[in-house]
C-alpha cells in the first residue's frame, strides 16, 4: 500500500539503531562537523609506500579533513607528512601529484624547505626580517605518519591521536597474514560522484546489494558458502567480512583465477572496512583499496588502488591487472554498477527531495545479507559526532520529552 505525506515521514518501525535520517547525508553543517570530529581525528590512508620508493620521493594528498598534504620520504628513508602550504603567504608548495624534491621551493617567493620540514632558506630574509623572524620560525606543519597494514602510508592530523595500531586494533586480523609480502600499486584512478561518502562506505559494508551485480550473483550468490560469510565488528567502527570460494568461471567469458595470493585459499575473498571511509578488498588475486575523500555533503572523490605483490613476474602482474580490471577498472563490470548505485542515492537524497530515512534493518545472524556492518558504522559515527544518526538534530528526543 502506498503512503501519504505523514506516513512517509514517520520513523520506520525498527529499533533506532536500524535506520538513519537522510539529513546526515545532505546537510552542510553535519559535513563540517564530520570533517572536524571524524576526519581530523582518525587515521587516513594517504598513499602506498611503493609510490614513493626513493629518498626525496613525494606524493601529494588532499586530506578529507581539509588540509592539502605532502607525503615525502627523507634521506633517512623515513616517510613524513607536512601541510602542502607555504608558511609565508599560504601558497601551494608542490603542484604535481608525485615527484622527487631534495629541496621544496615555493614558486612564489622562493622560500625553501627540506624533507624533514625545516625551512632552509628565506630569500633576502635578513634584509627583510632582520633578527625578528628566520628559518627557525618557518618550519612546515608536520602531520603524524605511520606505515602499516600492507605498506600503506597512514596520516593523522590530530597531534594527540592514539597510535595507528591502537586505532586499528584487531580489525585487520583476517588479512594480516596475507599482507606480509611487500606490495606494489599497479592501478590508480579517481572517481568523483555526486553522493555522500558514507553511502559509498555503506556499499562496501553490505553485500545485500549483490542483487545489483550479475557477476556476483553468478559467481558468488548462487554458489556454496556465500550465505555463510559473516560480518564481524571491531572497536572504532571497523568491520570485516569472511571469505568464500568465488566460482569465476560461472560468468561467461571469465575463468578460474590462475594467480592466487599468499595464504588465501583459491577463489578466496576477504573484505575489511576501516572507519570512516577506507576498504581493503582482497579478492583472490588482487588487493583493492578504496579511500573516500568527501568534497562536500553530496560530492565524493574516491581513490581506487589495485595492488599486487612486488615480487610478481611480468606474467603474474599482467594476470592480476586483467583480473582487477574485469570487475573493478573504470570499464569493469562491477565498479560501474556500484558507482551508479551511489550516484542514484545522491540524486534521490540531495536537499529538498523529501527523502527521509534509510533502513538498515536486515538481521540474519550477521551473515552476508545482514545489515549489521552498516549499523556498526553508524554506532561509531554517532559516538564521535555526538549526534544520533537516526535523529541528528535531536528532534525525536525533544519531542519524546
Amino acid at each position, binding site marked *: 500500500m502506498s503512503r501519504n505525506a505523514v506516513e512517509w515521514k514517520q520513523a520506520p518501525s525498527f529499533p533506532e539503531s536500524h535506520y538513519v535520517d537522510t539529513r546526515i547525508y545532505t546537510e552542510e553543517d553535519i559535513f563540517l562537523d564530520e570533517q572536524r570530529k571524524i576526519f581530523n581525528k582518525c587515521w587516513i590512508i594517504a598513499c602506498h609506500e611503493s609510490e614513493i620508493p626513493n629518498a626525496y620521493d613525494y606524493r601529494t594528498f588532499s586530506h578529507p579533513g581539509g588540509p592539502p598534504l605532502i607525503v615525502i620520504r627523507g634521506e633517512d628513508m623515513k616517510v613524513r607528512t607536512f601541510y602542502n602550504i607555504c608558511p609565508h603567504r599560504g601558497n601551494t608548495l608542490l603542484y604535481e601529484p608525485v615527484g622527487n624534491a631534495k629541496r621544496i621551493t615555493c614558486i612564489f617567493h622562493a622560500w625553501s624547505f627540506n624533507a624533514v620540514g625545516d625551512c632552509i632558506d628565506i630569500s633576502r630574509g635578513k634584509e627583510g626580517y632582520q633578527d625578528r623572524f628566520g628559518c627557525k620560525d618557518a618550519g612546515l606543519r608536520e602531520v603524524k605518519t605511520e606505515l602499516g597494514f600492507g605498506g600503506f602510508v597512514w596520516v593523522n592530523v590530530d597531534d594527540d591521536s592514539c597510535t595507528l595500531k591502537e586505532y586499528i586494533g584487531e580489525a585487520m586480523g583476517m588479512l594480516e597474514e596475507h599482507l606480509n609480502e611487500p606490495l606494489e600499486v599497479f592501478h590508480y584512478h579517481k572517481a568523483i560522484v555526486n553522493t555522500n561518502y558514507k553511502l559509498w562506505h555503506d556499499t562496501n559494508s553490505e553485500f545485500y546489494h549483490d542483487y545489483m551485480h*550479475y557477476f556476483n550473483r553468478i559467481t558468488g550468490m548462487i554458489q556454496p558458502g556465500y550465505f555463510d560469510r559473516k560480518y564481524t565488528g571491531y572497536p572504532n567502527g571497523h568491520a570485516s567480512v569472511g571469505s568464500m570460494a568465488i566460482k569465476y568461471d560461472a560468468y561467461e*567469458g571469465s575463468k578460474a583465477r590462475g594467480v592466487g595470493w599468499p595464504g588465501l585459499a583459491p577463489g578466496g575473498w576477504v573484505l575489511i572496512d576501516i572507519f570512516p571511509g577506507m576498504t581493503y578488498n582482497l579478492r583472490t588475486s588482487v588487493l583493492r583499496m578504496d579511500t573516500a575523500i568527501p568534497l562536500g555533503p553530496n560530492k565524493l572523490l574516491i581513490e581506487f588502488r589495485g595492488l599486487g605483490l612486488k615480487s610478481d613476474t611480468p606474467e603474474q602482474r599482467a594476470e592480476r*591487472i586483467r583480473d582487477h580490471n574485469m570487475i573493478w577498472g573504470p*570499464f569493469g563490470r562491477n565498479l*560501474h554498477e556500484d558507482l551508479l548505485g551511489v550516484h542514484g542515492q545522491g540524486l534521490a537524497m540531495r536537499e529538498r527531495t523529501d527523502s527521509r530515512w534509510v533502513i538498515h534493518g536486515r538481521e540474519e545472524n550477521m551473515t552476508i545479507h545482514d545489515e549489521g556492518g552498516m549499523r556498526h558504522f553508524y554506532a561509531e559515527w554517532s559516538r564521535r559526532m555526538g549526534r544520533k544518526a537516526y535523529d541528528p538534530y535531536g528532534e525525536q528526543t525533544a519531542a519524546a520529552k
Partner: protein
Amino acid sequence: MDTRTAITELIHRSGLIMDKCDFKGYLDLCAPDYQYRITTYSPEIRKDMTWLEHDKAGMKSLFDNLHRHNSDKSPISRHINVCLVDIDEAAGEADVTSTIEVYRTTLDGGETELFAVGKLYDKVALGQDGPALRSRNVRLDTRLLGYGYHIPF
C-alpha cells in the same frame, strides 16, 4: 576506392557503428586475431595502466553480457579524426593514428558533456576483402570518468 581512403573509412565506420551499439557490425570489421585495449598513463603512480584488454572472443562475450548488467544508458558519441596512415604494403598492414573525443548525452534533457579524449592507435590488416581492424589501443588522456561506462570506446 584507394587503400588510404578505405582505411580511413574503416576507422570512422568503427566509431559510428559502436555509437549505434551495433556490436556484431563492429566485430565484422575486425580480423580474427583482433586485440582491443584501453590504456592510459598514471602520473600519480608513474605507471602505464591497461584498463581493458580483450581478444575478439572476449569482446564478443563482453557485448553478449551487457544486457545482464546494470549500466548507464546515456548514449555516447565517438568523434574520430584520422591523422596518420602509414601503409606497409609488404607486410599487408597499416598503422593508423587518430584522435578521439567521446561525448556523453543524457537521456533526460539531452545535455551533452565531454566524457573523454585520447588517441586511437590502430593496426589494420590489408586483405583482398578490404581492410580489417587487427588491433586497437584506445590511449586515454582522460582518467577521471565519473561512474564509468560498460561499453568500450
